[in-house]
Protein backbone atom coordinates (compact mmCIF):
# COMPACT_ATOMS: atom_id res chain seq x y z
CA UNK A 1 0.00 0.00 0.00
CA UNK A 2 2.94 2.30 0.73
CA UNK A 3 4.28 1.66 -2.78
CA UNK A 4 0.90 2.53 -4.26
CA UNK A 5 0.68 5.84 -2.43
CA UNK A 6 4.32 6.57 -3.16
CA UNK A 7 3.70 6.22 -6.88
CA UNK A 8 0.59 8.35 -6.51
CA UNK A 9 2.05 11.25 -4.52
CA UNK A 10 5.80 10.82 -5.03
CA UNK A 11 6.40 11.92 -1.45
CA UNK A 12 7.58 9.68 1.35
CA UNK A 13 6.01 11.77 4.10
CA UNK A 14 2.57 12.00 2.52
CA UNK A 15 2.42 8.33 1.64
CA UNK A 16 3.52 7.39 5.17
CA UNK A 17 0.73 9.50 6.60
CA UNK A 18 -1.82 7.97 4.21
CA UNK A 19 -0.72 4.49 5.15
CA UNK A 20 -0.93 5.30 8.86
CA UNK A 21 -4.43 6.76 8.64
CA UNK A 22 -6.28 3.53 7.96
CA UNK A 23 -5.09 1.61 11.05
CA UNK A 24 -5.62 4.76 13.14
CA UNK A 25 -9.22 5.00 11.98
CA UNK A 26 -9.56 1.32 12.70
CA UNK A 27 -8.22 1.75 16.23
CA UNK A 28 -10.57 4.66 16.89
CA UNK A 29 -13.53 2.72 15.55
CA UNK A 30 -12.55 -0.32 17.60
CA UNK A 31 -12.39 1.86 20.71
CA UNK A 32 -15.71 3.57 19.97
CA UNK A 33 -17.59 0.41 19.09
CA UNK A 34 -15.63 -1.71 21.54
CA UNK A 35 -16.62 0.36 24.55
CA UNK A 36 -20.24 0.34 23.39
CA UNK A 37 -20.24 -3.42 22.77
CA UNK A 38 -18.46 -4.07 26.03
CA UNK A 39 -21.21 -2.30 27.94
CA UNK A 40 -23.94 -3.87 25.88
CA UNK A 41 -22.53 -7.41 26.18
CA UNK A 42 -21.90 -7.04 29.89
CA UNK A 43 -25.44 -5.74 30.34
CA UNK A 44 -26.97 -8.58 28.34
CA UNK A 45 -24.98 -11.17 30.27
CA UNK A 46 -26.17 -9.67 33.55
CA UNK A 47 -29.79 -9.55 32.27
CA UNK A 48 -29.74 -5.77 31.99
CA UNK A 49 -30.37 -3.60 28.94
CA UNK A 50 -27.27 -1.43 28.86
CA UNK A 51 -26.94 2.00 27.27
CA UNK A 52 -30.08 2.83 25.27
CA UNK A 53 -30.67 6.53 25.74
CA UNK A 54 -28.10 8.32 23.58
CA UNK A 55 -29.07 7.82 19.96
CA UNK A 56 -30.63 4.68 18.50
CA UNK A 57 -29.91 1.72 20.80
CA UNK A 58 -27.54 3.99 22.72
CA UNK A 59 -25.05 3.87 19.87
CA UNK A 60 -23.76 7.38 20.59
CA UNK A 61 -23.04 6.64 24.25
CA UNK A 62 -19.30 6.38 23.57
CA UNK A 63 -19.36 9.62 21.57
CA UNK A 64 -21.03 11.33 24.52
CA UNK A 65 -18.41 9.83 26.85
CA UNK A 66 -15.66 11.05 24.56
CA UNK A 67 -17.03 14.59 24.46
CA UNK A 68 -17.23 14.56 28.24
CA UNK A 69 -13.64 13.36 28.44
CA UNK A 70 -12.42 16.16 26.12
CA UNK A 71 -13.97 18.79 28.36
CA UNK A 72 -12.30 17.50 31.51
CA UNK A 73 -9.71 19.49 33.34
CA UNK A 74 -6.29 17.92 33.25
CA UNK A 75 -6.00 17.50 37.00
CA UNK A 76 -2.44 16.62 37.93
CA UNK A 77 -0.93 15.84 41.31
CA UNK A 78 1.97 17.98 42.55
CA UNK A 79 4.21 15.06 43.41
CA UNK A 80 4.51 13.51 39.96
CA UNK A 81 7.55 13.25 37.76
CA UNK A 82 5.92 15.29 35.06
CA UNK A 83 8.20 14.40 32.16
CA UNK A 84 7.74 10.64 32.49
CA UNK A 85 4.11 11.14 33.44
CA UNK A 86 3.39 12.89 30.15
CA UNK A 87 5.41 10.57 27.95
CA UNK A 88 3.90 7.36 29.36
CA UNK A 89 0.44 7.45 27.69
CA UNK A 90 2.00 8.36 24.36
CA UNK A 91 4.46 5.51 24.66
CA UNK A 92 1.76 3.00 25.57
CA UNK A 93 -0.36 4.10 22.64
CA UNK A 94 2.62 4.07 20.29
CA UNK A 95 3.44 0.52 21.32
CA UNK A 96 -0.02 -0.77 20.61
CA UNK A 97 -0.47 1.29 17.43
CA UNK A 98 2.91 0.40 15.96
CA UNK A 99 1.87 -3.24 15.86
CA UNK A 100 -0.65 -2.34 13.16
CA UNK A 101 2.16 -1.48 10.76
CA UNK A 102 2.74 -5.14 9.97
CA UNK A 103 -0.81 -6.44 10.19
CA UNK A 104 -2.33 -7.21 6.78
CA UNK A 105 -5.95 -6.04 6.65
CA UNK A 106 -6.27 -7.50 3.17
CA UNK A 107 -3.87 -8.55 0.46
CA UNK A 108 -3.63 -4.92 -0.68
CA UNK A 109 -4.08 -3.13 2.64
CA UNK A 110 -0.82 -3.67 4.48
CA UNK A 111 1.01 -0.88 6.23
CA UNK A 112 4.44 -2.28 5.63
CA UNK A 113 5.20 -5.52 3.84
CA UNK A 114 8.06 -6.42 6.14
CA UNK A 115 9.26 -9.99 5.99
CA UNK A 116 9.76 -10.27 9.75
CA UNK A 117 6.32 -8.99 10.66
CA UNK A 118 5.70 -11.46 13.49
CA UNK A 119 9.04 -10.76 15.08
CA UNK A 120 8.47 -7.02 14.71
CA UNK A 121 5.07 -7.22 16.41
CA UNK A 122 6.40 -9.26 19.32
CA UNK A 123 9.24 -6.79 19.76
CA UNK A 124 7.34 -3.52 19.33
CA UNK A 125 4.51 -4.47 21.63
CA UNK A 126 7.08 -4.70 24.44
CA UNK A 127 7.36 -0.90 24.36
CA UNK A 128 4.01 -0.93 26.14
CA UNK A 129 5.73 -2.46 29.17
CA UNK A 130 8.07 0.52 29.41
CA UNK A 131 5.19 2.95 29.12
CA UNK A 132 3.21 1.18 31.82
CA UNK A 133 6.16 1.11 34.20
CA UNK A 134 6.75 4.82 33.53
CA UNK A 135 3.11 5.64 34.20
CA UNK A 136 3.13 3.70 37.45
CA UNK A 137 6.41 5.12 38.67
CA UNK A 138 5.84 8.74 37.62
CA UNK A 139 2.40 8.89 39.21
CA UNK A 140 4.00 8.68 42.67
CA UNK A 141 1.07 6.67 43.91
CA UNK A 142 1.27 3.29 45.65
CA UNK A 143 -1.65 1.85 43.73
CA UNK A 144 -0.17 2.98 40.43
CA UNK A 145 3.19 1.50 41.24
CA UNK A 146 1.70 -1.82 42.37
CA UNK A 147 -0.44 -1.95 39.26
CA UNK A 148 2.48 -1.19 37.02
CA UNK A 149 4.66 -3.84 38.70
CA UNK A 150 1.96 -6.45 38.37
CA UNK A 151 1.35 -5.47 34.78
CA UNK A 152 4.98 -5.65 33.81
CA UNK A 153 5.45 -9.00 35.52
CA UNK A 154 2.38 -10.32 33.78
CA UNK A 155 3.13 -9.03 30.29
CA UNK A 156 6.72 -10.21 30.35
CA UNK A 157 5.75 -13.66 31.66
CA UNK A 158 3.03 -14.19 29.13
CA UNK A 159 5.22 -13.14 26.23
CA UNK A 160 7.02 -16.46 26.57
CA UNK A 161 4.12 -18.83 25.77
CA UNK A 162 3.00 -16.43 23.03
CA UNK A 163 6.44 -16.48 21.48
CA UNK A 164 6.69 -20.28 21.69
CA UNK A 165 3.34 -20.78 19.95
CA UNK A 166 4.31 -18.23 17.33
CA UNK A 167 7.52 -20.17 16.89
CA UNK A 168 5.62 -23.39 16.22
CA UNK A 169 3.57 -21.63 13.54
CA UNK A 170 6.74 -20.20 12.05
CA UNK A 171 8.22 -23.69 12.00
CA UNK A 172 5.20 -24.98 10.13
CA UNK A 173 4.87 -22.14 7.64
CA UNK A 174 8.53 -21.33 7.23
CA UNK A 175 8.04 -17.57 7.21
CA UNK A 176 7.78 -14.62 9.60
CA UNK A 177 5.73 -12.51 7.24
CA UNK A 178 2.10 -12.23 8.28
CA UNK A 179 1.06 -11.63 4.69
CA UNK A 180 2.63 -14.85 3.45
CA UNK A 181 1.18 -16.80 6.39
CA UNK A 182 -2.25 -15.50 5.37
CA UNK A 183 -1.66 -16.31 1.71
CA UNK A 184 -0.77 -19.90 2.58
CA UNK A 185 -4.18 -20.43 4.14
CA UNK A 186 -6.12 -19.35 1.08
CA UNK A 187 -9.24 -20.86 -0.50
CA UNK A 188 -11.43 -22.72 1.97
CA UNK A 189 -11.56 -22.86 5.73
CA UNK A 190 -10.08 -26.35 5.96
CA UNK A 191 -6.83 -24.82 4.76
CA UNK A 192 -6.57 -22.70 7.90
CA UNK A 193 -3.73 -23.47 10.23
CA UNK A 194 -6.06 -24.58 12.99
CA UNK A 195 -7.12 -27.39 10.63
CA UNK A 196 -3.51 -28.29 9.93
CA UNK A 197 -2.58 -25.95 7.11
CA UNK A 198 -3.05 -26.06 3.36
CA UNK A 199 -1.08 -29.17 2.43
CA UNK A 200 -3.32 -32.18 2.12
CA UNK A 201 -1.43 -35.13 3.61
CA UNK A 202 -1.37 -37.30 6.72
CA UNK A 203 0.46 -34.65 8.76
CA UNK A 204 -2.47 -32.25 8.33
CA UNK A 205 -4.78 -34.52 10.31
CA UNK A 206 -2.15 -35.29 12.92
CA UNK A 207 -1.61 -31.60 13.45
CA UNK A 208 -5.23 -30.62 14.22
CA UNK A 209 -5.29 -31.41 17.98
CA UNK A 210 -1.93 -29.74 18.53
CA UNK A 211 -3.03 -26.70 16.59
CA UNK A 212 -6.09 -26.44 18.82
CA UNK A 213 -3.83 -26.60 21.89
CA UNK A 214 -1.57 -23.96 20.36
CA UNK A 215 -4.56 -21.76 19.66
CA UNK A 216 -5.82 -22.08 23.25
CA UNK A 217 -2.39 -21.23 24.64
CA UNK A 218 -1.87 -18.19 22.44
CA UNK A 219 -5.41 -17.00 23.07
CA UNK A 220 -5.00 -17.20 26.84
CA UNK A 221 -1.58 -15.62 26.85
CA UNK A 222 -2.50 -12.77 24.51
CA UNK A 223 -5.53 -12.16 26.69
CA UNK A 224 -3.13 -11.76 29.60
CA UNK A 225 -0.84 -9.53 27.56
CA UNK A 226 -3.56 -6.99 26.91
CA UNK A 227 -4.58 -6.98 30.61
CA UNK A 228 -8.10 -8.20 30.02
CA UNK A 229 -10.16 -9.96 32.65
CA UNK A 230 -9.62 -12.61 34.00
CA UNK A 231 -6.01 -11.35 33.84
CA UNK A 232 -6.72 -7.73 34.77
CA UNK A 233 -4.85 -7.68 38.07
CA UNK A 234 -2.84 -4.61 36.95
CA UNK A 235 -6.00 -2.54 36.94
CA UNK A 236 -8.03 -4.51 39.46
CA UNK A 237 -10.55 -1.84 40.34
CA UNK A 238 -11.54 -3.47 43.62
CA UNK A 239 -7.97 -3.56 44.86
CA UNK A 240 -5.94 -0.90 43.06
CA UNK A 241 -8.47 1.78 42.05
CA UNK A 242 -7.42 1.64 38.40
CA UNK A 243 -3.87 0.31 38.55
CA UNK A 244 -1.16 2.14 36.66
CA UNK A 245 -3.45 4.87 35.30
CA UNK A 246 -5.05 5.81 38.61
CA UNK A 247 -3.54 9.30 38.49
CA UNK A 248 -4.48 10.01 34.90
CA UNK A 249 -7.58 11.78 33.72
CA UNK A 250 -9.13 13.32 30.65
CA UNK A 251 -7.39 12.75 27.35
CA UNK A 252 -4.33 11.06 28.81
CA UNK A 253 -6.58 8.48 30.39
CA UNK A 254 -8.35 8.18 27.05
CA UNK A 255 -5.00 7.33 25.45
CA UNK A 256 -4.62 4.37 27.81
CA UNK A 257 -8.13 3.20 27.02
CA UNK A 258 -7.51 3.65 23.31
CA UNK A 259 -4.36 1.58 23.49
CA UNK A 260 -6.21 -1.10 25.46
CA UNK A 261 -8.84 -1.47 22.78
CA UNK A 262 -6.24 -1.12 20.05
CA UNK A 263 -4.33 -3.96 21.68
CA UNK A 264 -7.45 -6.06 21.91
CA UNK A 265 -7.98 -5.82 18.18
CA UNK A 266 -4.28 -6.30 17.44
CA UNK A 267 -4.02 -9.57 19.36
CA UNK A 268 -7.30 -10.76 17.89
CA UNK A 269 -5.90 -10.00 14.47
CA UNK A 270 -2.69 -11.88 15.20
CA UNK A 271 -4.54 -14.93 16.50
CA UNK A 272 -6.81 -14.90 13.47
CA UNK A 273 -3.86 -14.57 11.10
CA UNK A 274 -1.90 -17.36 12.74
CA UNK A 275 -4.74 -19.87 13.09
CA UNK A 276 -7.84 -18.71 11.22
CA UNK A 277 -6.57 -17.63 7.85
CA UNK A 278 -6.25 -13.91 8.51
CA UNK A 279 -7.98 -12.01 5.74
CA UNK A 280 -8.89 -15.16 3.78
CA UNK A 281 -12.53 -15.89 3.26
CA UNK A 282 -13.73 -19.26 4.57
CA UNK A 283 -15.82 -20.03 1.45
CA UNK A 284 -13.94 -18.53 -1.47
CA UNK A 285 -14.52 -15.10 -2.92
CA UNK A 286 -17.55 -13.55 -4.49
CA UNK A 287 -15.20 -11.45 -6.63
CA UNK A 288 -13.75 -14.59 -8.18
CA UNK A 289 -17.08 -16.21 -8.94
CA UNK A 290 -18.65 -13.16 -10.58
CA UNK A 291 -15.40 -12.02 -12.13
CA UNK A 292 -14.80 -8.74 -10.37
CA UNK A 293 -11.14 -8.76 -9.40
CA UNK A 294 -11.24 -5.40 -7.57
CA UNK A 295 -13.87 -6.69 -5.14
CA UNK A 296 -11.52 -9.24 -3.58
CA UNK A 297 -9.47 -6.87 -1.35
CA UNK A 298 -12.66 -5.39 0.07
CA UNK A 299 -14.02 -8.85 0.81
CA UNK A 300 -10.73 -9.71 2.45
CA UNK A 301 -10.87 -6.59 4.61
CA UNK A 302 -14.41 -7.51 5.58
CA UNK A 303 -13.42 -11.05 6.61
CA UNK A 304 -10.42 -9.75 8.50
CA UNK A 305 -12.44 -7.25 10.51
CA UNK A 306 -15.15 -9.88 11.00
CA UNK A 307 -12.71 -12.37 12.48
CA UNK A 308 -11.11 -9.68 14.62
CA UNK A 309 -14.48 -8.67 16.05
CA UNK A 310 -15.42 -12.28 16.72
CA UNK A 311 -12.34 -12.64 18.87
CA UNK A 312 -13.03 -9.33 20.61
CA UNK A 313 -16.51 -10.58 21.40
CA UNK A 314 -15.08 -13.81 22.79
CA UNK A 315 -12.75 -11.74 24.96
CA UNK A 316 -15.71 -9.79 26.29
CA UNK A 317 -17.68 -12.96 26.83
CA UNK A 318 -14.78 -14.39 28.84
CA UNK A 319 -14.45 -11.17 30.78
CA UNK A 320 -18.00 -11.39 32.07
CA UNK A 321 -17.69 -15.10 32.78
CA UNK A 322 -14.54 -15.48 34.83
CA UNK A 323 -13.50 -13.79 38.06
CA UNK A 324 -10.09 -12.19 38.36
CA UNK A 325 -7.09 -14.42 39.04
CA UNK A 326 -4.81 -13.94 42.05
CA UNK A 327 -1.22 -12.96 41.37
CA UNK A 328 0.12 -16.39 42.34
CA UNK A 329 -2.55 -18.15 40.27
CA UNK A 330 -1.65 -15.94 37.35
CA UNK A 331 2.02 -16.80 37.60
CA UNK A 332 1.43 -20.51 38.13
CA UNK A 333 -0.91 -20.62 35.14
CA UNK A 334 1.80 -19.11 33.00
CA UNK A 335 4.94 -20.86 34.26
CA UNK A 336 3.53 -24.20 35.38
CA UNK A 337 0.91 -24.83 32.73
CA UNK A 338 1.11 -22.68 29.60
CA UNK A 339 4.88 -22.74 29.09
CA UNK A 340 5.35 -26.54 29.52
CA UNK A 341 2.40 -27.24 27.26
CA UNK A 342 3.65 -24.72 24.72
CA UNK A 343 7.11 -26.29 24.65
CA UNK A 344 5.68 -29.82 24.32
CA UNK A 345 3.40 -28.57 21.59
CA UNK A 346 6.34 -27.00 19.81
CA UNK A 347 8.29 -30.26 19.91
CA UNK A 348 5.36 -32.37 18.71
CA UNK A 349 4.55 -29.97 15.87
CA UNK A 350 8.20 -30.00 14.91
CA UNK A 351 8.25 -33.82 14.76
CA UNK A 352 4.98 -34.00 12.81
CA UNK A 353 6.10 -31.41 10.30
CA UNK A 354 9.13 -33.63 9.58
CA UNK A 355 6.88 -36.46 8.42
Amino acid at each position, binding site marked *: MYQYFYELTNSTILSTIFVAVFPLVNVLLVALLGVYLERK*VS*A*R*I*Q*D*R*IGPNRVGPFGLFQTVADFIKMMQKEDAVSNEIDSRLYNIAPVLVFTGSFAAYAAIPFSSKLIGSEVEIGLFYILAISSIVVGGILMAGWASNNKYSLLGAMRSVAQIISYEIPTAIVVLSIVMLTGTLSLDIISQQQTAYFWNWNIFGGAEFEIAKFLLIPFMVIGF*LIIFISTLAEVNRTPFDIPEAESELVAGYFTEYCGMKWAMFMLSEYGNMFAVSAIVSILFFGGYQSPFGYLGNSIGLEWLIPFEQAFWFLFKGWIFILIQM*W*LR*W*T*LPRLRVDQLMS*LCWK*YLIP*YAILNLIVIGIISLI
Partner: protein
Amino acid sequence: MREYLQNTWLGIYTVLVGMKVTFKHLFTPSVTIQYPEVKVPLPERVRNRLYVNMDDCIGCDQCSRACPVSCIEIETVKSLPTEDLGLTSNGKKKALWVTKFDIDIAKCCFCQLCVFPCPTDCIYMTNVYEYSEFERDNLIYKFATLTSEEAVEKKANLEKFNAEKEAQKAAAAKAKEEQKPADKE
Protein backbone atom coordinates in the same frame (compact mmCIF):
# COMPACT_ATOMS: atom_id res chain seq x y z
CA MET B 1 1.51 -35.92 36.93
CA ARG B 2 -2.05 -37.17 37.08
CA GLU B 3 -3.08 -34.25 39.27
CA TYR B 4 -1.40 -31.86 36.83
CA LEU B 5 -3.37 -33.21 33.88
CA GLN B 6 -6.53 -33.25 35.96
CA ASN B 7 -5.99 -29.58 36.86
CA THR B 8 -5.53 -28.70 33.21
CA TRP B 9 -8.70 -30.53 32.23
CA LEU B 10 -10.63 -29.01 35.13
CA GLY B 11 -9.42 -25.54 34.16
CA ILE B 12 -10.62 -25.85 30.57
CA TYR B 13 -13.83 -27.66 31.50
CA THR B 14 -14.94 -25.20 34.18
CA VAL B 15 -14.25 -22.24 31.90
CA LEU B 16 -16.44 -23.84 29.24
CA VAL B 17 -19.21 -24.47 31.78
CA GLY B 18 -19.05 -20.85 32.88
CA MET B 19 -19.12 -19.64 29.30
CA LYS B 20 -22.17 -21.78 28.64
CA VAL B 21 -23.97 -20.18 31.58
CA THR B 22 -23.15 -16.64 30.51
CA PHE B 23 -24.06 -17.44 26.90
CA LYS B 24 -27.51 -18.52 28.03
CA HIS B 25 -27.93 -15.25 29.91
CA LEU B 26 -26.97 -13.34 26.78
CA PHE B 27 -30.35 -14.28 25.35
CA THR B 28 -32.60 -14.22 28.40
CA PRO B 29 -34.84 -11.16 28.45
CA SER B 30 -33.58 -8.43 30.73
CA VAL B 31 -35.23 -7.68 34.05
CA THR B 32 -34.73 -3.93 33.77
CA ILE B 33 -37.80 -1.72 34.13
CA GLN B 34 -37.40 1.47 32.11
CA TYR B 35 -38.50 3.66 35.01
CA PRO B 36 -39.87 6.95 33.74
CA GLU B 37 -41.72 5.21 30.90
CA VAL B 38 -42.71 2.06 32.74
CA LYS B 39 -43.66 2.08 36.41
CA VAL B 40 -44.00 -0.75 38.84
CA PRO B 41 -47.60 -1.00 40.09
CA LEU B 42 -47.79 0.23 43.68
CA PRO B 43 -49.18 -1.86 46.55
CA GLU B 44 -52.74 -1.13 47.57
CA ARG B 45 -52.02 0.47 50.95
CA VAL B 46 -49.03 2.47 49.81
CA ARG B 47 -48.33 5.70 51.72
CA ASN B 48 -47.16 8.62 49.64
CA ARG B 49 -48.03 12.27 49.21
CA LEU B 50 -50.80 13.63 51.43
CA TYR B 51 -53.86 15.22 49.91
CA VAL B 52 -56.64 17.21 51.57
CA ASN B 53 -60.07 17.42 50.04
CA MET B 54 -60.99 20.90 51.21
CA ASP B 55 -64.68 20.47 50.28
CA ASP B 56 -65.01 18.09 53.19
CA CYS B 57 -62.68 19.71 55.72
CA ILE B 58 -64.43 21.08 58.77
CA GLY B 59 -61.28 22.60 60.22
CA CYS B 60 -61.33 20.46 63.37
CA ASP B 61 -57.50 20.51 63.70
CA GLN B 62 -57.38 16.81 64.68
CA CYS B 63 -54.89 15.90 61.96
CA SER B 64 -52.57 18.70 63.00
CA ARG B 65 -52.62 17.49 66.60
CA ALA B 66 -52.00 13.90 65.58
CA CYS B 67 -48.99 14.75 63.47
CA PRO B 68 -45.78 13.62 65.26
CA VAL B 69 -43.57 16.04 63.29
CA SER B 70 -45.97 19.01 63.30
CA CYS B 71 -45.97 19.38 59.59
CA ILE B 72 -49.63 20.43 59.34
CA GLU B 73 -50.58 24.00 60.21
CA ILE B 74 -54.24 24.95 60.40
CA GLU B 75 -55.86 28.28 61.17
CA THR B 76 -59.62 28.70 61.28
CA VAL B 77 -62.09 31.54 61.63
CA LYS B 78 -65.58 31.01 63.00
CA SER B 79 -68.32 31.61 60.54
CA LEU B 80 -71.15 34.00 61.22
CA PRO B 81 -74.53 32.48 62.10
CA THR B 82 -75.91 34.08 58.96
CA GLU B 83 -73.38 32.34 56.70
CA ASP B 84 -74.07 28.86 55.39
CA LEU B 85 -70.91 26.84 54.65
CA GLY B 86 -72.78 23.77 53.50
CA LEU B 87 -72.46 20.13 54.51
CA THR B 88 -69.59 17.69 54.09
CA SER B 89 -70.12 14.59 52.00
CA ASN B 90 -70.96 12.53 55.07
CA GLY B 91 -73.48 15.03 56.35
CA LYS B 92 -71.54 17.02 58.93
CA LYS B 93 -72.21 20.73 59.14
CA LYS B 94 -69.26 22.98 58.44
CA ALA B 95 -68.92 25.81 60.93
CA LEU B 96 -65.42 27.18 60.40
CA TRP B 97 -63.68 29.03 57.62
CA VAL B 98 -60.33 27.33 57.07
CA THR B 99 -58.07 30.28 56.37
CA LYS B 100 -54.83 28.33 56.43
CA PHE B 101 -54.14 24.65 55.78
CA ASP B 102 -50.42 24.17 55.10
CA ILE B 103 -48.67 20.82 54.93
CA ASP B 104 -44.88 20.92 54.86
CA ILE B 105 -44.40 17.71 52.85
CA ALA B 106 -40.63 17.94 53.33
CA LYS B 107 -41.19 17.27 57.04
CA CYS B 108 -43.85 14.62 56.54
CA CYS B 109 -42.78 11.16 57.69
CA PHE B 110 -45.60 9.29 55.95
CA CYS B 111 -46.84 7.73 59.19
CA GLN B 112 -50.47 8.15 58.16
CA LEU B 113 -51.41 9.11 61.75
CA CYS B 114 -53.26 12.20 60.53
CA VAL B 115 -55.51 10.13 58.31
CA PHE B 116 -57.29 8.09 61.02
CA PRO B 117 -58.60 10.85 63.33
CA CYS B 118 -60.19 12.84 60.50
CA PRO B 119 -63.97 12.78 61.12
CA THR B 120 -64.82 13.39 57.49
CA ASP B 121 -62.07 11.33 55.82
CA CYS B 122 -60.90 14.37 53.91
CA ILE B 123 -57.15 13.95 54.45
CA TYR B 124 -55.64 10.87 52.85
CA MET B 125 -52.53 9.42 51.22
CA THR B 126 -52.36 9.37 47.43
CA ASN B 127 -50.10 7.26 45.21
CA VAL B 128 -48.13 10.24 43.88
CA TYR B 129 -44.48 9.84 44.74
CA GLU B 130 -42.62 11.93 42.15
CA TYR B 131 -42.75 15.46 43.52
CA SER B 132 -39.16 16.60 43.86
CA GLU B 133 -38.63 20.34 43.79
CA PHE B 134 -35.68 22.64 43.31
CA GLU B 135 -36.84 25.03 46.01
CA ARG B 136 -37.59 23.83 49.49
CA ASP B 137 -40.41 26.35 49.81
CA ASN B 138 -42.25 24.66 46.97
CA LEU B 139 -42.70 21.64 49.20
CA ILE B 140 -45.05 23.53 51.53
CA TYR B 141 -48.43 22.69 50.10
CA LYS B 142 -51.19 25.22 50.70
CA PHE B 143 -54.59 23.58 50.61
CA ALA B 144 -56.75 26.44 51.91
CA THR B 145 -59.32 27.38 49.26
CA LEU B 146 -59.82 30.91 50.51
CA THR B 147 -57.61 33.59 49.06
CA SER B 148 -55.70 35.74 51.52
CA GLU B 149 -58.05 38.70 50.90
CA GLU B 150 -61.03 36.48 51.60
CA ALA B 151 -59.38 35.25 54.77
CA VAL B 152 -58.80 38.83 55.93
CA GLU B 153 -62.38 39.63 55.06
CA LYS B 154 -63.73 36.69 57.04
CA LYS B 155 -61.59 37.65 59.98
CA ALA B 156 -62.82 41.22 59.83
CA ASN B 157 -66.40 40.01 59.50
CA LEU B 158 -66.02 37.92 62.62
CA GLU B 159 -64.40 40.73 64.53
CA LYS B 160 -67.16 43.07 63.48
CA PHE B 161 -69.75 40.49 64.47
CA ASN B 162 -68.03 39.89 67.80
CA ALA B 163 -67.78 43.62 68.43
CA GLU B 164 -71.46 44.01 67.64
CA LYS B 165 -72.24 41.14 69.99
CA GLU B 166 -70.11 42.69 72.70
CA ALA B 167 -71.81 45.96 72.18
CA GLN B 168 -75.21 44.29 72.38
CA LYS B 169 -74.14 42.44 75.51
CA ALA B 170 -72.86 45.62 77.04
CA ALA B 171 -76.03 47.40 76.12
CA ALA B 172 -78.10 44.58 77.61
CA ALA B 173 -76.01 44.66 80.81
CA LYS B 174 -76.36 48.39 81.03
CA ALA B 175 -80.09 48.09 80.61
CA LYS B 176 -80.16 45.50 83.40
CA GLU B 177 -78.05 47.72 85.57
CA GLU B 178 -80.41 50.55 85.00
CA GLN B 179 -83.38 48.33 85.76
CA LYS B 180 -81.92 47.06 89.08
CA PRO B 181 -81.91 50.30 91.00
CA ALA B 182 -85.40 50.93 89.74
CA ASP B 183 -86.47 47.61 91.27
CA LYS B 184 -85.03 48.56 94.69
CA GLU B 185 -86.91 51.71 94.90
